[in-house]
């Protein structure tokens, strides 16, 4: 290898590997993220989506069966899988700080932002699998059409943007605080953005309060990205102009959340330099 060193095979293989030192970090994070719970969730989702219609009355027509399947798949894509991914990302962030992996890879010259993104990638893959799965369930339940494919793509695009940001936030929070602290903090943001904000909107409309209105305006409107209702009721794709507005808002929010997560990650791992 070098100077007569024969420790790890041929020089060319070593050179290939070292073109990207972040790959090992990805695999280490992958094995933490996919440690059995992901597989269990996938099996549970398959079983529940398959047998969801059984929970309905036999008197209902087959369209209701399709709706129940799609709803079950979307709940996994927007509630169960993100909850798991957030927990995994916070754990990985925490391990980067406490487990020494951050220092180890930083010492080898892997920059902080590279470590941050590569370590978060496995958790995003978990989320993306369920988003794509829900889209496939939708198309197979109602039948393929251009409009449905369009909605599927919008569903996946909005979901990936929002969930990537929340996963990066969880990574940072895990690194800055702890695995459990980061998980709880990020889950609060997640569920507030999905459901709490809508509740606040109703309260604000009823009370006509300036203070509540201000809080609502600056709250993360993550529910905008959840197109479950459109899929369950088979409304087809959202008009592009409308989707572009929502998507732009989600990208902006995602950028802010990701930068927040990165700042927390840098603080947590002590990466003030690299």
């Amino acid at each position, binding site marked *: *290898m*070098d*100077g*007569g*060193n*024969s*420790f*790890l*095979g*041929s020089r060319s*293989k*070593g050179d*290939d*590997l*070292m073109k990207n*030192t972040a790959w*090992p970090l990805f*695999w*280490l994070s*992958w*094995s*933490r993220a996919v*440690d*059995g719970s992901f597989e269990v969730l996938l099996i549970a989702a398959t079983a529940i989506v398959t047998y969801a219609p059984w929970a309905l009355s036999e008197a209902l027509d087959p369209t209701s069966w399709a709706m129940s399947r799609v709803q079950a798949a979307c709940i996994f894509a927007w509630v169960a899988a993100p909850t798991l991914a957030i927990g995994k990302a916070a754990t990985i962030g925490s*391990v980067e700080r*406490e*487990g*020494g*992996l951050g*220092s*180890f890879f*930083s*010492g*080898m*010259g892997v920059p902080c932002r590279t470590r941050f993104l590569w370590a978060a990638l496995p958790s995003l893959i978990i989320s993306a699998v369920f988003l794509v799965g829900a889209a496939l369930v939708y198309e197979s339940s109602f039948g393929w059409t251009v409009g449905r494919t369009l909605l599927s793509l919008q569903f996946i695009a909005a979901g990936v943007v929002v969930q990537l940001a929340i996963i990066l936030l969880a990574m940072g929070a895990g690194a800055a605080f702890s695995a459990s602290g980061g998980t709880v903090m990020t889950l609060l943001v997640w569920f507030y953005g999905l459901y709490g904000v809508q509740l606040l909107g109703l309260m604000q409309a009823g009370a006509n309060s300036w203070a509540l209105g201000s809080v609502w305006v600056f709250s993360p409107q993550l529910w905008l990205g959840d197109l479950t209702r459109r899929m369950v009721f088979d409304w087809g794709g959202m008009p592009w102009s409308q989707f572009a507005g929502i998507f732009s808002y989600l990208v902006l929010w995602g950028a802010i959340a990701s930068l927040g997560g990165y700042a927390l990650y840098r603080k947590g791992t*002590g990466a*003030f*330099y*690299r």
Partner: protein
Amino acid sequence: MGRSPATPVIESSGAIDFPEGGVTLLVGNNGGGKSTFLQTICGILPALEGGDGIDGAAVYLPEELNFPPTLKGRQLMSALFRSPDSATEALLLLGVPLDTAFGKLSKGNRQKVRIVVTEAFGALKRADLICHDEPMSGLDLITRKLLAGIWGGTREGPIVFSKRAHRIIAMHAGVPPRHQRVLVAVGGKLRVIPPIAICDSWMEATVSSGVDPKEMIS
């Protein structure tokens, strides 16, 4: 020399050269700045002034390095290296059970895994400097002597690590590898002293070099 908000500042004047294939022993009291020094020269922490760490490639093994607890030795090497055979063989030769999950290994065997991974990355990166922070911690006597012999170049062990890299070994006690110099980090100050035969404590190492330890603490 460097700092982070949670670690002490360590001062040293002048550049230190690390000859190819050599060993530098790093001793010092708890909180004296050993880890800060290692992290600074590896570029993990910023140097306060006088340079940006090492001029070359480095690999740093922190005192704590935890791999995924469910990964077995063989799986871990496959996850880390494209050609894992030699690294896996090294684990086997050091007596690490390859089919036991990392989290279920004994403390000493986990440390062997960390050392092999660090040395393997050092070889792959063709590192100029490999820094081990307390590598002997938890190892049995035979392994300590084996590693000391290999690192010091006095023994052709079953494992061939990089012969190019200079190593800095931070340690508290025991028989050190053959080394060119000793760095003593005490109270945030760094001093270079000649080689020592046995590393019993930083204080003895300092006294044997004719330096009054109080001078360093003050």
